[in-house]
């Protein structure tokens, strides 16, 4: 009898040991944080109403002044698209010096993950290259998208004997990727590049293998260039590539995968973000845009593309900026967005910090320069005013978060 009881006792002990070992990482972590930081700091981080009352932080509806808060006392977590990650990382680094009280954190987990996070309310803001669907707006309650940046996508190439910049137009690019143009010495390519001597070699078209905002922008552009592409393929973060079916397509993982495949494959073409091409000094093509001008991808041609569509924003503030009619517009471009909960953010201090940060990012000259250096472009005035107005409508507990 006694043995039985002792055995039972030991079993219980062991099981509880195992269980506690399993749950340690999640449940114990906050307790450790309490030990190392001051009580006040952790309570604000936790953001529960009663602890806010305990500390000297003002009531949620009265926003505190930034100077009154200790450094790093507000923890804001964002996640989502990797397309704008280089810029967001720079901005967050710079913003530490503007408002030390807020610690921003952005993880590039992909647009899909970002949207899921904001809908499930596991993150404070999301980054996304693709727009929310109608049912996602409603399932998330009160979501709103705000354009933050525009980025360009550029075709890169590796053609035997070609050292000068190649020029393409939309129809040709779409033709290459739907495998109707299969040779570099195709009349369409030759006609666009007088003076260049193209080889009689078949074109290997490289695309992103991973789902990506870059692909979404690129396929949006192709769909705008070519009705046939729009009907047969469409646009999205990953698509079914006709050139794969034809046997001349290769997928590369990430910008670096595409760039490596293009560099290692003679007579190939691919597409990467402008920022990646700039950082790695990869040659990219010029494009003939809708108005028939030859343009190069840069901050100016991006801004021109944004201005082309500045008046066509819907209430959801989402828009495409591909194939713009402006004389200087780069045709393969797209916005990347931030998604916020507009009325139901649980922590008003945090809500205020997020909106303040976004306003800074949209308006600060230094922030704009950082973006431009990386090959992105911040919004032109015509678009920015609309985004700022929409940001001013964010409320918490029914009161506006920031006075306009």
């Amino acid at each position: 009898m006694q043995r039985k009881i002792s055995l039972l006792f030991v079993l219980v002990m062991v099981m509880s040991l195992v269980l506690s070992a399993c749950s340690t990482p999640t449940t114990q972590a906050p307790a450790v944080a309490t030990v190392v930081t001051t009580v006040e700091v952790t309570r604000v981080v936790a953001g529960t109403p009663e602890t806010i009352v305990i500390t000297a932080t003002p009531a949620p509806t009265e926003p505190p002044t930034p100077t009154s808060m200790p450094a790093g006392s507000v923890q804001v977590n964002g996640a989502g698209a990797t397309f704008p990650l280089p810029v967001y990382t720079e901005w967050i680094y710079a913003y530490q010096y503007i408002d030390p009280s807020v610690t921003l954190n952005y993880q590039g987990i992909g647009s899909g993950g970002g949207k899921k996070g904001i809908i499930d309310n596991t993150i404070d803001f999301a980054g996304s290259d693709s727009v929310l669907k109608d049912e996602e707006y409603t399932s998330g309650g009160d979501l709103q998208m705000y354009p933050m940046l525009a980025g360009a996508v550029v075709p890169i190439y590796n053609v035997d004997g070609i050292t000068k910049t190649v020029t393409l137009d939309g129809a040709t690019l779409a033709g290459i990727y739907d495998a109707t143009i299969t040779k570099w010495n195709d009349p369409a390519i030759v006609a666009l590049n007088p003076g260049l001597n193209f080889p009689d070699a078949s074109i290997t078209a490289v695309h992103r293998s991973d789902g990506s905002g870059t692909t979404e922008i690129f396929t949006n552009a192709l769909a705008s260039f070519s009705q046939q592409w729009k009907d047969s393929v469409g646009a999205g973060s990953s698509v079914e590539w006709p050139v794969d079916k034809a046997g001349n397509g290769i997928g590369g993982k990430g910008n670096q995968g595409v760039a490596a495949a293009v560099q290692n494959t003679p007579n190939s073409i691919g597409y990467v973000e402008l920022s990646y091409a700039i950082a790695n000094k990869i040659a990219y093509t010029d494009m003939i845009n809708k108005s028939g001008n030859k343009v190069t991808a840069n901050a100016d041609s991006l801004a021109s593309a944004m201005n082309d569509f500045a008046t066509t924003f819907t209430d959801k503030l989402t828009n495409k900026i591909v194939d713009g009619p402006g004389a200087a517009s780069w045709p393969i471009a797209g916005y990347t967005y931030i998604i916020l909960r507009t009325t139901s953010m649980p922590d008003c201090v945090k809500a205020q910090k997020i909106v303040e940060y976004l306003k800074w990012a949209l308006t600060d000259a230094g922030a704009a320069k950082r973006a431009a250096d990386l090959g992105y472009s911040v919004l032109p005035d015509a678009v920015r005013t609309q985004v700022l107005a929409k940001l001013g409508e964010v409320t918490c507990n029914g009161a506006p978060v920031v006075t306009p």
Partner: protein
Amino acid sequence: MIDNMAKQNHIIANRRPPSRWATRLRLAFHYGDRPWNALTISMAVLTILVMLAIGVLLWRESAGSRSAFGLNFLKPTTDASWNPVSGEFQAWPFIYGTLVTSLFSLVLAVPLSLGVAIFLAELCPEWLRLPLGGMFELLAAIPSVIYGLWGIFVFLPKVVDPVGRFLDTTLGNVPVLSLFFHGPIPASGASLLAAAFILSIMITPTITAITRDVFLAIPVSQREASLALGSTRWETIWKVLIPYGLSGILGAVILGLGRALGETMAVTMVVGNSIGGSLSLLRPGYTMSSIIANEFAEAVSPLHTQALIEVGLILFIITLLLNILARLLVWRVGRGNVQGARA
């Protein structure tokens, strides 16, 4: 045993009237068998529970995709469609890619590993055994992304591309084999063949290390008996040692196959990631783990996510089935061995 009895005597000799609970606690912990049993059983149960939880999750989360596509999802066809825009998904190209790269990598890796293991265990001079074995095991420690990068920049253009061209001109003209070896191989070398090559390099150290240990565990008496009967070294290795260690060697091969089936990063970097519909090893392809790694993060439509999870489910089931099959094989071989020894 003797030690235990001595301890027991010691306790009896020093018995004082301790509290009831203290006695029970001490009794329970003094003889470590029962707590130890309980601990190991709970660990084993935990493993099974995790396994089941993964299976159940994959099954449940792929419900939408399973009901939308049914068996059509698995249909072997060269015209499979994987179209996230229109929401049509068929997994055959990935299943084919995973199976063909894994199996072909085994075809390459097993003879190589067996040779290396035999050399290390039987023929290698003593002074060379440790450094050579260590270097081989080091191969297993290289992260797969390094294999991928090395593959893209060195191995594919320098090795796979010429080999692919050679295979295309030779086997590409043989009637049945041409189905699997017709080119042209892409100039970058990115192809199913490249993935199989990289995989074979990655699984060789695993198979080698275990096979070597199997050989080293074979009693010296077996070798001596065989040599005493007048066998040559070759006959001793081929007719005595390999049959003796066969179940262990098969176990090693299974471990290698498991790694090949699940390997993601290196394969994704070299396989070409293209759904072409060709059966040829020389063409770019796709594997199950690659499509999941590639598209899961940015899969925005629920159906797309579910289809990817269903691919994960299939990979899970295939891995499970192959492991069970292989386990049965090992048992069969092991039993046969014992009977053979008795006879």
